[in-house]
Protein backbone atom coordinates (compact mmCIF):
# COMPACT_ATOMS: atom_id res chain seq x y z
CA UNK A 1 0.00 0.00 0.00
CA UNK A 2 1.60 3.32 -1.01
CA UNK A 3 1.99 5.69 1.88
CA UNK A 4 3.72 8.52 0.05
CA UNK A 5 2.27 11.90 1.00
CA UNK A 6 0.72 14.02 -1.72
CA UNK A 7 2.47 17.39 -1.87
CA UNK A 8 0.31 20.48 -2.26
CA UNK A 9 1.00 23.43 -4.60
CA UNK A 10 3.61 24.84 -2.21
CA UNK A 11 5.34 21.51 -1.78
CA UNK A 12 3.80 20.90 1.64
CA UNK A 13 1.60 17.95 2.48
CA UNK A 14 -2.01 18.90 1.90
CA UNK A 15 -3.86 18.23 5.12
CA UNK A 16 -7.22 18.97 3.55
CA UNK A 17 -9.87 19.22 6.23
CA UNK A 18 -8.35 16.44 8.34
CA UNK A 19 -7.55 18.74 11.32
CA UNK A 20 -11.09 20.15 11.30
CA UNK A 21 -12.65 16.70 11.07
CA UNK A 22 -10.45 15.53 13.92
CA UNK A 23 -11.42 18.56 16.02
CA UNK A 24 -15.09 17.81 15.41
CA UNK A 25 -14.47 14.21 16.43
CA UNK A 26 -12.98 15.46 19.70
CA UNK A 27 -16.09 17.58 20.22
CA UNK A 28 -18.40 14.62 19.64
CA UNK A 29 -16.34 12.54 22.02
CA UNK A 30 -16.53 15.27 24.66
CA UNK A 31 -20.33 15.24 24.37
CA UNK A 32 -20.30 11.44 24.74
CA UNK A 33 -18.28 11.76 27.95
CA UNK A 34 -20.73 14.32 29.34
CA UNK A 35 -23.64 11.99 28.51
CA UNK A 36 -21.97 8.95 30.07
CA UNK A 37 -21.00 10.85 33.21
CA UNK A 38 -24.55 12.23 33.38
CA UNK A 39 -26.09 8.75 33.30
CA UNK A 40 -23.65 7.55 35.97
CA UNK A 41 -24.16 10.64 38.12
CA UNK A 42 -27.92 10.17 38.00
CA UNK A 43 -27.48 6.74 39.55
CA UNK A 44 -24.77 7.71 42.02
CA UNK A 45 -26.62 10.77 43.26
CA UNK A 46 -29.22 8.67 45.09
CA UNK A 47 -26.65 6.66 47.07
CA UNK A 48 -26.08 7.68 50.69
CA UNK A 49 -23.34 7.34 53.27
CA UNK A 50 -19.83 6.09 52.60
CA UNK A 51 -20.97 4.25 49.48
CA UNK A 52 -22.30 7.46 48.01
CA UNK A 53 -18.99 9.22 48.64
CA UNK A 54 -16.99 6.36 47.05
CA UNK A 55 -19.34 6.33 44.06
CA UNK A 56 -19.13 10.08 43.53
CA UNK A 57 -15.34 10.03 43.85
CA UNK A 58 -15.05 7.16 41.32
CA UNK A 59 -17.18 8.91 38.71
CA UNK A 60 -15.37 12.18 39.47
CA UNK A 61 -11.98 10.55 38.96
CA UNK A 62 -13.11 9.05 35.65
CA UNK A 63 -14.35 12.44 34.44
CA UNK A 64 -11.18 14.14 35.68
CA UNK A 65 -8.90 11.66 33.88
CA UNK A 66 -10.84 12.33 30.69
CA UNK A 67 -10.50 16.08 31.16
CA UNK A 68 -6.73 15.78 31.69
CA UNK A 69 -6.35 13.51 28.64
CA UNK A 70 -8.37 15.82 26.41
CA UNK A 71 -6.46 18.91 27.54
CA UNK A 72 -3.15 17.13 26.96
CA UNK A 73 -4.23 16.08 23.47
CA UNK A 74 -5.31 19.62 22.65
CA UNK A 75 -1.99 20.99 23.92
CA UNK A 76 -0.04 18.48 21.81
CA UNK A 77 -2.05 19.25 18.69
CA UNK A 78 -1.48 22.97 19.07
CA UNK A 79 2.22 22.68 19.88
CA UNK A 80 3.37 20.10 17.35
CA UNK A 81 4.07 21.92 14.14
CA UNK A 82 3.18 21.08 11.51
CA UNK A 83 1.63 17.72 12.36
CA UNK A 84 -1.09 16.93 14.85
CA UNK A 85 0.26 13.60 16.00
CA UNK A 86 -1.19 13.12 19.45
CA UNK A 87 1.08 11.42 21.92
CA UNK A 88 0.33 7.96 23.12
CA UNK A 89 0.21 9.08 26.73
CA UNK A 90 -2.73 11.42 26.09
CA UNK A 91 -4.76 8.74 24.31
CA UNK A 92 -3.74 6.15 26.91
CA UNK A 93 -4.98 8.52 29.62
CA UNK A 94 -8.33 8.81 27.86
CA UNK A 95 -8.54 5.04 27.60
CA UNK A 96 -7.91 4.78 31.36
CA UNK A 97 -10.67 7.33 31.98
CA UNK A 98 -13.15 5.19 30.04
CA UNK A 99 -12.09 2.13 32.06
CA UNK A 100 -12.65 3.96 35.38
CA UNK A 101 -16.12 5.00 34.20
CA UNK A 102 -16.82 1.38 33.17
CA UNK A 103 -15.68 0.15 36.58
CA UNK A 104 -17.92 2.74 38.24
CA UNK A 105 -20.82 1.60 36.06
CA UNK A 106 -20.28 -2.05 36.93
CA UNK A 107 -19.88 -1.30 40.63
CA UNK A 108 -22.74 1.12 41.18
CA UNK A 109 -25.05 0.18 38.37
CA UNK A 110 -24.88 -3.54 38.89
CA UNK A 111 -23.26 -4.70 42.12
CA UNK A 112 -25.05 -2.18 44.31
CA UNK A 113 -28.16 -2.78 42.23
Amino acid at each position, binding site marked *: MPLDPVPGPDGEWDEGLAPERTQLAWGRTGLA*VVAAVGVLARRVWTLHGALGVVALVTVGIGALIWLVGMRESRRLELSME*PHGATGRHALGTICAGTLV*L*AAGGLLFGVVVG
Partner: protein
Amino acid sequence: MSADPESRGATSGHDPAADVPTGPGGDEPGAAESGASPAEFEPDVRFTYANERTFLAWNRTALALIATGVAATQLLPEFHVAYGRRILGVPLIALGALVAVTSFRQWRANERAMRLRRPLPTSSMTTVLSIGIAVVAVVAVVLVLLGTK
Protein backbone atom coordinates in the same frame (compact mmCIF):
# COMPACT_ATOMS: atom_id res chain seq x y z
CA MET B 1 -5.37 -4.80 2.19
CA SER B 2 -3.43 -7.92 3.05
CA ALA B 3 -4.51 -10.08 5.94
CA ASP B 4 -1.41 -12.16 6.33
CA PRO B 5 -0.89 -13.80 9.70
CA GLU B 6 2.18 -11.69 10.40
CA SER B 7 0.31 -8.40 10.35
CA ARG B 8 -2.43 -9.90 12.50
CA GLY B 9 0.19 -10.84 15.04
CA ALA B 10 1.19 -7.20 15.36
CA THR B 11 -2.18 -6.48 16.97
CA SER B 12 -2.08 -8.99 19.75
CA GLY B 13 1.61 -9.69 20.12
CA HIS B 14 3.47 -7.36 22.45
CA ASP B 15 6.99 -6.96 21.25
CA PRO B 16 8.97 -4.63 23.48
CA ALA B 17 11.65 -4.16 20.84
CA ALA B 18 9.07 -2.84 18.37
CA ASP B 19 8.13 -0.12 20.86
CA VAL B 20 11.52 1.53 20.63
CA PRO B 21 11.30 3.23 17.22
CA THR B 22 8.02 4.98 18.09
CA GLY B 23 9.47 6.65 21.16
CA PRO B 24 9.24 10.37 21.86
CA GLY B 25 12.05 11.12 19.43
CA GLY B 26 9.96 10.06 16.46
CA ASP B 27 7.20 12.48 17.46
CA GLU B 28 9.42 15.54 17.43
CA PRO B 29 8.86 18.15 14.76
CA GLY B 30 11.31 17.78 11.93
CA ALA B 31 11.73 14.07 12.51
CA ALA B 32 10.71 13.53 8.90
CA GLU B 33 13.62 15.59 7.61
CA SER B 34 16.35 14.33 9.91
CA GLY B 35 15.11 10.75 10.11
CA ALA B 36 14.72 9.54 13.69
CA SER B 37 15.87 6.04 12.78
CA PRO B 38 16.73 4.36 9.50
CA ALA B 39 13.61 2.22 9.35
CA GLU B 40 11.16 4.86 10.51
CA PHE B 41 9.17 7.41 8.54
CA GLU B 42 6.91 10.26 9.52
CA PRO B 43 3.53 9.10 8.24
CA ASP B 44 1.27 11.24 6.08
CA VAL B 45 -0.40 13.57 8.57
CA ARG B 46 -3.84 12.80 7.11
CA PHE B 47 -3.41 9.15 8.07
CA THR B 48 -2.29 10.18 11.55
CA TYR B 49 -5.45 12.25 11.93
CA ALA B 50 -7.59 9.44 10.52
CA ASN B 51 -6.07 6.98 12.99
CA GLU B 52 -6.84 9.38 15.85
CA ARG B 53 -10.44 9.85 14.68
CA THR B 54 -10.87 6.10 14.52
CA PHE B 55 -9.63 5.82 18.11
CA LEU B 56 -12.06 8.54 19.18
CA ALA B 57 -14.95 6.86 17.37
CA TRP B 58 -14.23 3.57 19.15
CA ASN B 59 -14.07 5.42 22.47
CA ARG B 60 -17.43 7.05 21.84
CA THR B 61 -18.77 3.57 21.16
CA ALA B 62 -17.27 2.38 24.43
CA LEU B 63 -18.83 5.29 26.36
CA ALA B 64 -22.20 4.69 24.70
CA LEU B 65 -22.06 0.99 25.65
CA ILE B 66 -21.20 1.85 29.28
CA ALA B 67 -23.93 4.51 29.54
CA THR B 68 -26.49 2.17 27.96
CA GLY B 69 -25.50 -0.65 30.29
CA VAL B 70 -25.89 1.53 33.38
CA ALA B 71 -29.18 2.96 32.07
CA ALA B 72 -30.49 -0.56 31.41
CA THR B 73 -29.81 -1.64 34.98
CA GLN B 74 -31.30 1.52 36.50
CA LEU B 75 -34.05 2.91 34.32
CA LEU B 76 -35.86 -0.16 32.98
CA PRO B 77 -38.79 -1.70 34.84
CA GLU B 78 -38.09 -5.01 36.55
CA PHE B 79 -38.40 -8.04 34.29
CA HIS B 80 -40.16 -11.26 35.30
CA VAL B 81 -36.83 -13.02 34.75
CA ALA B 82 -34.67 -12.74 37.88
CA TYR B 83 -31.74 -10.34 37.42
CA GLY B 84 -33.06 -9.54 33.95
CA ARG B 85 -31.80 -5.96 33.96
CA ARG B 86 -28.33 -7.05 35.03
CA ILE B 87 -28.24 -9.78 32.39
CA LEU B 88 -28.85 -6.99 29.91
CA GLY B 89 -26.59 -4.32 31.42
CA VAL B 90 -23.45 -6.16 32.53
CA PRO B 91 -22.43 -7.46 29.07
CA LEU B 92 -22.89 -3.96 27.63
CA ILE B 93 -20.59 -2.40 30.25
CA ALA B 94 -18.03 -5.21 29.88
CA LEU B 95 -18.10 -4.81 26.10
CA GLY B 96 -17.54 -1.06 26.57
CA ALA B 97 -14.46 -1.69 28.70
CA LEU B 98 -13.13 -4.19 26.12
CA VAL B 99 -13.68 -1.73 23.28
CA ALA B 100 -11.85 1.01 25.21
CA VAL B 101 -8.78 -1.16 25.76
CA THR B 102 -8.62 -2.56 22.22
CA SER B 103 -9.15 0.90 20.68
CA PHE B 104 -5.94 2.13 22.27
CA ARG B 105 -4.00 -1.01 21.33
CA GLN B 106 -5.26 -0.72 17.77
CA TRP B 107 -4.36 2.97 17.55
CA ARG B 108 -0.85 2.19 18.78
CA ALA B 109 -0.42 -0.74 16.39
CA ASN B 110 -1.64 1.36 13.45
CA GLU B 111 0.68 4.22 14.37
CA ARG B 112 3.63 1.83 14.55
CA ALA B 113 2.75 0.16 11.26
CA MET B 114 2.48 3.52 9.48
CA ARG B 115 5.82 4.68 10.84
CA LEU B 116 7.52 1.47 9.73
CA ARG B 117 5.59 1.45 6.41
CA ARG B 118 4.13 -1.94 7.09
CA PRO B 119 0.63 -3.13 6.21
CA LEU B 120 -1.92 -1.97 8.75
CA PRO B 121 -2.75 -4.68 11.30
CA THR B 122 -6.20 -6.19 11.11
CA SER B 123 -8.59 -6.19 14.02
CA SER B 124 -11.38 -8.56 15.00
CA MET B 125 -13.12 -5.91 17.14
CA THR B 126 -15.71 -5.13 14.46
CA THR B 127 -16.79 -8.78 14.55
CA VAL B 128 -16.76 -8.92 18.36
CA LEU B 129 -18.81 -5.71 18.61
CA SER B 130 -21.37 -6.84 16.02
CA ILE B 131 -21.84 -10.25 17.59
CA GLY B 132 -21.95 -8.75 21.09
CA ILE B 133 -24.66 -6.24 20.20
CA ALA B 134 -26.64 -8.90 18.31
CA VAL B 135 -26.54 -11.23 21.33
CA VAL B 136 -27.67 -8.42 23.66
CA ALA B 137 -30.50 -7.62 21.23
CA VAL B 138 -31.70 -11.24 21.26
CA VAL B 139 -31.56 -11.31 25.08
CA ALA B 140 -33.51 -8.04 25.21
CA VAL B 141 -36.21 -9.43 22.90
CA VAL B 142 -36.57 -12.54 25.10
CA LEU B 143 -36.74 -10.45 28.30
CA VAL B 144 -39.33 -8.09 26.83
CA LEU B 145 -41.47 -10.96 25.51
CA LEU B 146 -41.47 -12.64 28.94
CA GLY B 147 -42.81 -9.38 30.32
CA THR B 148 -42.11 -6.82 33.03
CA LYS B 149 -43.45 -6.60 36.57
